[in-house]
């Protein structure tokens, strides 16, 4: 049973406290949406979950399937099944996508004996699904990618690396209408009872396609409101002021 349990999590960056006691549980088969005003701490939560060294955990815990990840390295978290699609994925010049994907896959699924050819056949299948050309395989990670291409590539990584808990930080920002559809389809195809999703977004439009089970609103480092998908609709209409106060 997949379960990510975040308990009373507080964290700071640069000495500034950003997360102030976040409680959130994501189980396999569930789709959670996380919304909230700019600067509320949504990306910070993603970075803290992934173990970014610039973000310091001040208290609380992160537990995935009974393994305490709170003090674990980013790679240990990834190997435990955690995946973050970054809000602004960084370019890494010279690091080829093909070898990056293959190396990462082998780390995350050491037991899998899929050979290289089968592996890249699968990669190509998913490249097509997210609307990226095969030539991307020989390009460098995010290097010279357009905003939309970066997002598509993050989703591709999700599909290839097959994590248990998927955190998508504004995967819908910067995508054109068609791309949004492709990305949503890829998410839906990947969703199963074995995978839990936390989708950070500002917009209703991706949630229309994906249909979250829960919506959480983060304000000033704390979950200020929770509800079902109707909450997302209310926010789209009314903004955040009514929650803030």
């Amino acid at each position, binding site marked *: 049973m997949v379960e990510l349990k975040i308990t009373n999590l507080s964290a700071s960056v640069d000495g500034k406290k950003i997360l102030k006691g976040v409680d959130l549980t994501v189980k396999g088969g569930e789709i959670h949406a996380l919304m909230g005003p700019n600067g509320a701490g949504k990306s910070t939560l993603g970075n803290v979950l*992934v*173990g*970014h*060294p*610039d973000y310091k955990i001040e208290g609380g815990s992160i537990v995935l399937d009974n393994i305490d990840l709170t003090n674990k*390295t*980013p*790679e240990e*978290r*990834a*190997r435990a099944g955690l*995946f*973050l699609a*970054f809000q602004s*994925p*960084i370019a*890494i*010049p*010279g*690091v*080829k996508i*093909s*070898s*990056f994907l*293959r*190396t*990462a896959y082998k*780390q*995350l699924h050491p037991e899998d004996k899929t*050979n*290289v*050819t089968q592996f*890249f056949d699968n990669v190509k299948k998913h490249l097509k699904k997210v609307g990226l050309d*095969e030539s991307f*395989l*020989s390009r*460098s*990670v995010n290097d010279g990618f357009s905003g939309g291409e970066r997002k598509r590539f993050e989703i591709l*990584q999700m599909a290839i*690396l097959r994590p248990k808990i998927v955190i998508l930080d504004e995967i819908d920002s910067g995508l054109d209408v068609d791309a949004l559809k492709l990305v949503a389809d890829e998410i839906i195809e990947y969703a199963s009872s074995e995978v839990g999703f936390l989708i950070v977004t500002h917009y209703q439009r991706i949630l229309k396609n994906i249909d979250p089970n829960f919506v959480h609103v983060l304000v000033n480092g704390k979950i200020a409101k929770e509800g079902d998908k109707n909450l997302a609709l209310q926010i789209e209409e009314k903004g955040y002021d009514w929650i803030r106060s």
Partner: protein
Amino acid sequence: MEVQIENKEEEIERLLDGLKNSKSSDWEFRDTYNPIYSTGKGLNKAVVEEISEIKKEPDWMRRFRLKALEVFQSKPMPNWGPDLSGIDWENTNYYNKPDERKANNWEDVPDQIKQTFEKLGIPEMEQKYLAGSVAQYESEGVYHSLKKVWEDKGVVFMDLDSAVKNHPDLVKEYFCKAVPMTDNKFAALNGAVWSGGSFLYVPKGVHIDMPLQTYFRMNNESTGQFEHTIVVGDEGSSVHYIEGCTAPRWDKDSLHSAIVEIYAHKNSNVRYTSVQNWSKSVYNMPTKRAWVDENAKMEWVGGSLGSKVTMIYPSSYLRGPHATTSNLNISLAGPGTVKDTGAKAIHMAPYTSSKIIAKSISIEDGKAIYRGLLRMNKGAVNSRSRVQCDALLINDESQSYTYPHDEIYEPSGTFSHEATVGKIGTEELTYLRSRGLSEDEASSMIVLGFLDDVMREIPMEFAIEMNRLVKLEMGKLGAVG
């Protein structure tokens, strides 16, 4: 195209898997091999005479050596650049002859030496990738072979000592023309005690489609290796020559001081690749120079890893109109090492062009220096040059310096310099680690990415080797930052 990507990935993966457990002991191992002849420690006229005597050389060579010895003794040490005070002239052994035989066949190489080269994977490489191969152990070539097709076309490839005997006129035409032994103290030293190295001659119009390689192995401590290599691409020919070298690790320092001369005649295309992986007790001070004639193309590709101090500045003299040269170099300055490397491009004719890309990586207190010379003589009209130096500093105490030197006497010449210095960023590391890569893997991947534009030019077997060496160096570090 598709198929290519797959095959290459597959091949690389296969090769890397084979190397997974590799350690530096894979090449730092020591043989207990005693040379059959050695001049003992120290250098004087008698030693030089002795070397010439053992080699049964023609008289012109003997006189040349003695002259070079005088020049060596009269020249001062370079007073710029790295500290060379650790070179112990008195306690160095200048000539070690491993064996009487020079084999054309691995079976005939003395067992122990053969095993060494087998451990280093040389015979296997030869079978798969090479048109010809020379292997040198200590001071002498012990093995050489050349595929028959090339021999039939008049290609000559053997150790220089054998070439002096078998092709004296050809050797005389080129020996120390591009690099006169008076060039610098180390070139003069090489002139006095040179032994081994390769001689490669590619006749007019012959295109050799597979590389030819020489592999140099130093074994004993406190020895010097002083090979002299000459590569001649006659008019309209093309050739790729590769050098590899290793030495075991000793407590006492060893000296490697080679001469490499390359002659790219009119319309020829010569590529010289060297991957030098000396262990950390070696002073590596070769002099490498190419003469590039009209419309010829000379490419230097170099990977310099290991060693204690390295000073290499491969030079291209662009002597004819439209001659071009490129110089791609990777220097890895590991802990406690100094890499003083660079390139020289001398534009002596109109419409010549040069491109220099130097990439360095400094680890811990490693120090990487780029030292370059760009000269455009008056009359070298419309010549172009581009120099790019990129440095990557791994740790806070890592160092990098750039000393470009320009002498532009031709107003129509154009040139550009770019230099960057970077560190491995937390964001990049975190991104890769969040995909399951360990910190070491992530940092070596970033380092290899930084090297990518040069790595692409290196033949795959060597790219794999570089890949492995970079990973080894990075793996030794533990925490990066």
